[in-house]
């Protein structure tokens, strides 16, 4: 929690905003943690004391919610998450979506995209974007696999 507060205030300073007071910070973090089902004990845990995989993910989303970055890169956020946890994480992401913020979501599966509706989908192969489209492109891949697209490009 100390870590998050320091990080939040460092970010605010960089943006030329006032520091959050301890009380305000507590109020905000408690509300956001509750939404992500992170209990108070977990907030108190020292920075480097064992978090499980799912706890780490939720913690990352909490950090994102607190730090409010302009650009978020979520690299395979869905790996190692069960269905419920994925829903929580997605809700965290959706809550942050607005016109002033971009998300780059990297995933192997359509599953996550049921929860986080993408604006644009890019398909990447061998380090190059080989096809771009709307959300329907991800659905197409889910049904037909990548083979068609790869053949089309080659």
């Amino acid at each position, binding site marked *: 929690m100390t*870590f998050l507060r320091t*990080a939040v205030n460092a970010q605010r300073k*960089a943006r030329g905003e006032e520091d959050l007071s301890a009380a305000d910070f507590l109020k905000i973090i408690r509300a956001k943690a509750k939404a992500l089902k992170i209990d108070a004990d977990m907030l108190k845990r020292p920075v*480097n*004391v064992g978090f499980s995989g799912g706890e780490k993910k939720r913690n990352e989303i909490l950090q994102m919610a607190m*730090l409010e970055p302009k650009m978020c890169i979520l690299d395979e956020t869905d790996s190692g998450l069960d269905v419920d946890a994925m829903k929580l994480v997605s809700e965290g992401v959706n809550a942050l979506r607005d016109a002033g913020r971009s998300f780059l979501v990297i995933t192997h599966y359509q599953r996550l995209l049921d929860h986080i509706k993408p604006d644009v989908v890019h398909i990447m192969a061998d380090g190059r974007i080989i096809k771009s489209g709307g959300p329907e492109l991800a659905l197409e891949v889910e049904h037909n696999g990548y083979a068609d697209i790869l053949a089309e490009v080659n």
Partner: protein
Amino acid sequence: MALPQAKQTATEERLAALTMPDAGCTRKAREAALARVREMGLPSRRDEYWKYTRPDTLVSAEALPAAVFHTDEPMLFNEFDRLKIVFVDGVFSPDASDDLKLEGVTIDRLEDICCKDIHWAKELYGVLEANGQTPVPRPLAALNTAFASDGVAIHVTGKPSKPISLIYRHESETSDAILHHIVRVESGAEVTILENGPAASRFNKCMEIDIADGGKLHHVRAQGRDHQRRSATHMFTRMGQESVYKSFTLTVNGVLTRNEQVIELTGDDAMAHVAGACVGDGDFLHDDTVFVTHDAVNCESRQVFKKVLRNGATGVFQGKILVKEGAQKTDGYQISQSLLLDDDSQFLAKPELEIYADDVACSHGSTSGAIDETALFYLRSRGVPTEDATDMLTLAFLAEAVEEIEDEDLAGVIVSRLQDWLARRR
């Protein structure tokens, strides 16, 4: 066997500088302790037990002067309701102390016990210290028993409503204090004892603690910020069945500190936890020497010592768990770790286990390392400045030791002192 000449000379020189107080009922114990000192001789750097810590300045006839540190910072524990017992340069100060009356406990000054022929403390004075001389001699503790000039006897019969707080003020640059306390916690009684302050330019303190069946003692101590002070402390603890002893020590600064903890678990199902957090900078040597003896069934002991060192500071840990024959189902744990913030500091550790029972779980570990670069990167990637990130990781490193303090408020003030240290030392 006769002592080596140099050791005998050094011992006699030290003894010549001391006078035994008029001792009443403790006289016999004091004379026996003096005989022990003569037999063992005072420590010298050739002794195995003093291999990492040079005892010269602790045993010299005269104490080296130490500047008194002045600060506007309020004394530790000031915000707590507690019974204050104040010693100034090792002398009890009735004016600064509270009235020594509290329900569930009786407190007597050593001086008063000395005038009485019969007193409960007589059964303990020098007894646990004498027991603790085998298998490893601790001559400075025997010297303390023989020559202690002040101290208190705390007899806990109930559950006092507030902690008993021993405060050691350092006001004279040339003070050389020897204090001896005796604590007896009766069956089912429970008490918290706080100690804080640098005490004197040179401080030799011995505390003998006897915890009866089901008794509980919580001990939290901090050793002050005076940098030039030197101290050697001993705590001898004997524990009955289902008794609990938890001790935590915070050391920030101090050119030389040797803290010995000698614990004997003599009743079944007892639990002893000793922990320490020390942060040292520059000309600083801190030595934790711990000896835990399991002599009963199903007891648990934990030793958790963490040291943060920089600018050539030295940390020492000598910890031992001895499990006697028949002490089955022992659960012994020992960890000593150092965080070295630069290449000039060093940590010297001697973890030991000696086990004569076949159904026990004992573990020990010792590590020395720098700040984890990956963790530092993680924090910095979230926008935390490097210095703040380093402090955060340092506090997280110390957390396991601080967590041994049961009372959350006490743990909180210890953490804030550690934060202050980190902030000052940039």
